[in-house]
């Protein structure tokens, strides 16, 4: 047999049909659904009198729109348009008989945090969701990617997706990371190097010692932002850490099925002589704590750098950088560490897991914030409960942070958690686009520890210089 990459293996195991012209139908093992990109898909099913083909493989949770303040299970707490969307998901989940975690359920949270937490996401699976950050699930060695609403409807109706195969890219992070450098710095640094279109047409496999050393939470952070690099998906071969994380979760296999699953999962790695269409190697020690300065996730620099001059770029990027600096209210040559911030957001499917909260709390212990507003939004009700049990919630609130309920919140600002025009935010989320966190809002992306440090000092801060 010819050598294969991990992506090749998962692809081959899910090919349900291949037409003469090469068009493939890929079988989907898990379909995650949220309230914003699904109403039109369910409406399409109703209009065509179609059913959900595999309701037992379809899992829904409202996350994008929901308020993260207390009392939110009262529908009156939501603006009318959000309420209608969440109510539509309630009804669709019930009518079509799919798994559902409503707002009132402690297991509710961001769909990409709930899936792994509940054991829905397993190695070697195909996982899709009408959300670009579905790439997160790749951390388990699953082929996971975002789809549009038409494709959501297609998967609901047929449990398959029409696909053409992507190319294989290997991103290897060798050696050890330096102190203060996290999974977020890895994933941002890769995007800084390849650009936001660098991964277009590829599925990325992240490997190397620095990746193996990451926890499952860290691996999810890395894969989560594969989409920001333009890739269809990002994945990491499963290992003992993966199996340990999964074991005992509510929907993980048990008993003899666990043993059978484990035997197959252990075959899920890229063969030594597999073909790669592109290889990128970065030394772990060369990665610094980074922040973004502009309005694209590729606008990444080490925290001790200066705001770049637009003229230092070529092609259309010069104009884009000019526009970005104007939008961000920054000047070329300004030190990143001199940039003052007024808001801090810790949360999102990128960095809303327990380990992220621990890292931030570690910095905040016994300190007070110097910013106007800081909030922590745990990725799920269970993450929140665990953080409370570990005493982290107390550290956050004593420092001056708002301690919120689970949801997407200020990552995309569809709910009331938004920046005002001109406000500048240190955020652990994944996108710094114009208007992303609120019209006119300015976003700097970074790791949870760096965001916490910024909250304490009131400006972008080098975590390595914190006591």
């Amino acid at each position, binding site marked *: 047999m010819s050598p294969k990459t991990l992506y090749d293996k998962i692809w081959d195991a899910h090919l349900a049909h291949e037409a003469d012209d090469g068009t493939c139908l890929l079988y989907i093992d898990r379909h995650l659904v949220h309230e914003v990109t699904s109403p039109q898909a369910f409406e399409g099913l109703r209009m065509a009198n179609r059913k959900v083909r595999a309701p037992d493989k379809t899992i829904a949770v409202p996350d994008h729109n929901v308020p993260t303040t207390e009392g939110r299970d009262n529908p009156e707490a939501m603006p009318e*348009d959000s309420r209608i969307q969440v109510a539509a998901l309630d009804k669709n989940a019930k009518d079509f008989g799919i798994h559902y975690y409503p707002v009132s359920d402690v297991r509710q949270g961001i769909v990409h945090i709930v899936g792994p937490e509940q054991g829905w996401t397993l190695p070697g699976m195909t996982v899709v969701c009408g959300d670009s950050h579905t790439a997160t699930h790749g951390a388990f060695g699953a082929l996971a990617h975002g789809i549009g609403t038409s494709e959501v409807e297609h998967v609901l109706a047929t449990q398959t997706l029409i696909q053409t195969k992507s190319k294989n890219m290997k991103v290897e992070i060798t050696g050890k990371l330096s102190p203060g450098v996290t999974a977020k710095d890895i994933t941002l640094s890769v995007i800084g190097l390849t650009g936001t279109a660098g991964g277009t047409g590829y599925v990325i496999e992240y490997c190397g010692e620095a990746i193996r050393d990451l926890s499952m939470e860290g691996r999810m952070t890395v894969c989560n932002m594969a989409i920001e690099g333009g890739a269809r998906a990002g994945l990491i071969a499963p290992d003992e850490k993966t199996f340990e994380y999964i074991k005992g979760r509510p929907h993980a296999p048990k008993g003899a099925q666990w043993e059978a699953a484990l035997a197959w999962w252990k075959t899920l790695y890229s063969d030594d002589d597999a073909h790669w269409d592109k290889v990128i190697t970065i030394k772990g020690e060369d990665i610094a704590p980074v922040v973004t300065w502009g309005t694209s996730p590729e606008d990444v620099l080490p925290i001790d750098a200066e705001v770049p001059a637009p003229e230092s770029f070529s092609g259309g990027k010069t104009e*884009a950088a000019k526009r970005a600096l104007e939008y961000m209210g920054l000047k070329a040559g300004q030190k990143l560490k001199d940039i003052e911030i007024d808001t801090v957001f810790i949360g999102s499917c990128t960095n809303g897991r327990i380990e992220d909260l621990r890292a931030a709390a570690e910095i905040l212990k016994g300190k007070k914030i110097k910013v106007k507003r800081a909030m922590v939004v745990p990725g799920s009700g269970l993450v929140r409960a665990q953080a409370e049990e570990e005493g982290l919630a107390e550290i956050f609130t004593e420092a001056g942070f708002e301690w919120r309920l689970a949801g997407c919140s200020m990552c995309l600002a569809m709910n009331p958690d938004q920046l005002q025009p001109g406000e500048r935010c240190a955020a652990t989320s994944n996108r710094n686009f114009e208007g992303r966190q609120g019209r006119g809002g300015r976003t700097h992306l970074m790791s949870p520890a760096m965001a916490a440090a910024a909250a304490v000092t009131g400006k972008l801060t080098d975590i390595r210089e914190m006591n």
Partner: protein
Amino acid sequence: MEKFVKLTGVAAPMPLVNIDTDMIIPKQFLKTIKRSGLGVNLFDEMRYDDNGNEIPNFVLNQPAYREAKIIVAGDNFGCGSSREHAPWALLDFGIRCVISTSFADIFYNNCFKNGILPIVLPQEEVDKLMDDAERGSNAVLTVDLESQEITGPDGGTIGFDVDPWRKHCLLNGLDDIGLTMEKAASIDAFEAKAAMERPWV
């Protein structure tokens, strides 16, 4: 889905790179449960000021481009969120074709599901079409999917590639789901086999 055979219209130039789907349709308009009516909010934050008034120098607000059917864009158009509201908003405005040097993967797929043709061309050809587009209503482009050719205002043509299956679906306005359902026997067979091999799924 409306067929796409041949399109003749004005092309709006948007040379900015990395135009993301948050720019194409900001999040506050994602709360709809319908596909229609988003055209008025296409590029909302670039197109209107804080009071909802049109920003005159934004391309789609200029008289020459108010009826544009094509966008010629900078690299990596449609990056970011998977929101299909982006092609829905373009379509609702009247845009049926976007030309760029590259597109983000999910946006690219979403276009084909909605009767929009995204065309990838090399930089020098996009530059040429960008120049044509800058000439406004004097510069009508014709995009012929059948022959895979764009005809410029001066009569010159540029060929483009498109996946044969997607071309077939666009030309005939075919519904993917109906076509896949014709392959139900293959899906059934796969499901039965997978249930034996990976019963834990």
